[in-house]
C-alpha cells in the first residue's frame, strides 16, 4: 500500500462533492444540539460509532473484495431515511467520477456501469481504495474519518466556530476513529466469509429523522 495514495483519497479537498454536505450538522445546529466545540464533539462521537462504523465496514468490505452489489443492498438496508439513501448515492456517483479520473480501473468502470446514478458512497470508496492500491484498513480509516470531518467543517461555516477548536475536536476523536476502523476491518473479514449480512447495522435514529426534516427546509446552506 502507498501511504501517500491514502492521503490523496482522505484529503478533504479530494473533489468528490463532500463540501456541500454537513453530515446532519446543519439540522443539529438549528435544533440547538450543536452550539460549540463540546457539543460538536458529542455529535461527532455519536456519528462515528453509528453511521461511521457502518460506513467504515462497508468501505473495508468493498476494499477486500466483497461484491459491491451485495454491499450496496446492505447499505440500503442500513439507511432507513430515503433522503440519506439519495444523498449517499449522489455522493457515491460524485466520488466515482473523481476516482475514475484519479485511479482508473476496470472495477470502477464496472461499478459505474452497474449503478449509473450512483452506488452508496462507502461502497464506491472501498472500490476506489482498491483501485488506488489501498487495503481494507485504509478504506475503513477514510470512511470513519469522513464520518466526523464533514460535520466538523460544516460547523465551522454554520456557527463561525473557531477552526482551531473544530480541528482539535477531530484530533481528540482520532483514537476512536482508529478503534472504529479496527472494528470495521474485522467486520469486513467476517463479511468475506458470511456475506454482507454480517456487517454491523448500528444506527442513529435522530440523524435519520433530522435528515428528513432538513430536506423539507426552504432555506439551507447544505444539501444534507
Amino acid at each position, binding site marked *: 500500500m502507498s501511504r501517500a495514495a491514502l492521503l490523496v483519497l482522505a484529503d478533504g479537498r479530494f473533489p468528490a462533492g463532500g463540501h*456541500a454536505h454537513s453530515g446532519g450538522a446543519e439540522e443539529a445546529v438549528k435544533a440547538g444540539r450543536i452550539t460549540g466545540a463540546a457539543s460538536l464533539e458529542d455529535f461527532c462521537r455519536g456519528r462515528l460509532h453509528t453511521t461511521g462504523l457502518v460506513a467504515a465496514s462497508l468501505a473495508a468490505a468493498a476494499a477486500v473484495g466483497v461484491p459491491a452489489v451485495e454491499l450496496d443492498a446492505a447499505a440500503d438496508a442500513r439507511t432507513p431515511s430515503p433522503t440519506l439513501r439519495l444523498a449517499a448515492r449522489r455522493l457515491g*456517483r460524485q466520488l466515482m467520477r473523481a476516482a475514475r479520473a484519479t*485511479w482508473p480501473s*476496470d472495477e470502477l468502470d464496472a461499478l*459505474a456501469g452497474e449503478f449509473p446514478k450512483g452506488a452508496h458512497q462507502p461502497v464506491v470508496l472501498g472500490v476506489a481504495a482498491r483501485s488506488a492500491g489501498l487495503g481494507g484498513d485504509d478504506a475503513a480509516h477514510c470512511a470513519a474519518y469522513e464520518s466526523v470531518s464533514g460535520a466538523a467543517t460544516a460547523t465551522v461555516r454554520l456557527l463561525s466556530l473557531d477552526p482551531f477548536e473544530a480541528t482539535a475536536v477531530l484530533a481528540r476523536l482520532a483514537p476512536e476513529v482508529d478503534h472504529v476502523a479496527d472494528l470495521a476491518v474485522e467486520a469486513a473479514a467476517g463479511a468475506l466469509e458470511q456475506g454482507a449480512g454480517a456487517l454491523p447495522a448500528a444506527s442513529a435514529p435522530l440523524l435519520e429523522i433530522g435528515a428528513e426534516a432538513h430536506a423539507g427546509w426552504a432555506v439551507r446552506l*447544505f*444539501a444534507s
Partner: protein
Amino acid sequence: MHLDHTHGGPGAVSADARRADGSRRALRIGLGGPVGSGKTATVAALCRALRDERSLAVVTNDIYTREDAEFLLKEAVLPPERISAVETGACPHTAIRDDISANLEAVEDLEDEVGPLDLVLVESGGDNLTATFSKGLVDAQIFVIDVAGGDDIPRKGGPGVTTADLLVVNKTDLAPHVGSDLGRMAADAAAQRGALPVVLQSLRSERGVADVADWVRAQLAAWTA
C-alpha cells in the same frame, strides 16, 4: 494500475467533447459574478433570445435557496424539466471551480433526460471577484458585473474580470443614478483584458441582451463547426 486506460460507458469522467454514445455534447457556458449583478436576468434574457433557435437548458447554483431556479421557472423562460438547481454548501466557488462533480452531474442528467441539447448555461451563485469556472465544467465563461457595484471594479481586475471569455458590464441604465463613469469602466476593462471582449448592456433597454446573445451564437457556431 491502468494508467493508459480509456473511458467509456456511463458517467465518463472528463470534459470530453463527446458523450458516451459518441454524439457531441452540448456547449457549456458559465455565468459568474458578484451578488445581484444580473446573472439570472441575463440567463433569462438569453433563454428568451435563443430558445427558438437552439435546444437549451440551465443549471443554477443557489447559495442557500432555490430562488434563481424558481425565478426562471416563474418567468417560464424554459420548460421546468430544462432547469436544474445544484446545492453548494455555503461555497459557490467550490462548486464551479474546485469540486465540480455536482454541476457535471446536473449537466449530464439534463442531456440524458431532455437532450439532445445544444447549449447548457451554468449560473454560479453570486460570489467574489476571484470566482471563475473550471475548464472541466464549462467551455467558456461570462463574468457579469454591474455599474452599481462601483465603477472601479474593472480597474481592480481579478481573475473574473481579467480572464473571462466575455465581460458584461450590466445595468448601464443606472449609471447616471449611481454616479458611475461608463467610459472609464470600458477603458479600464479594455486595459485589463487586452483583446478579450467586453459588452456594456442594460437589460432595461430595448437592445437588452442582444450583444451577449450574438456572442453566444458565435460560440455555438465555433463549437459545432
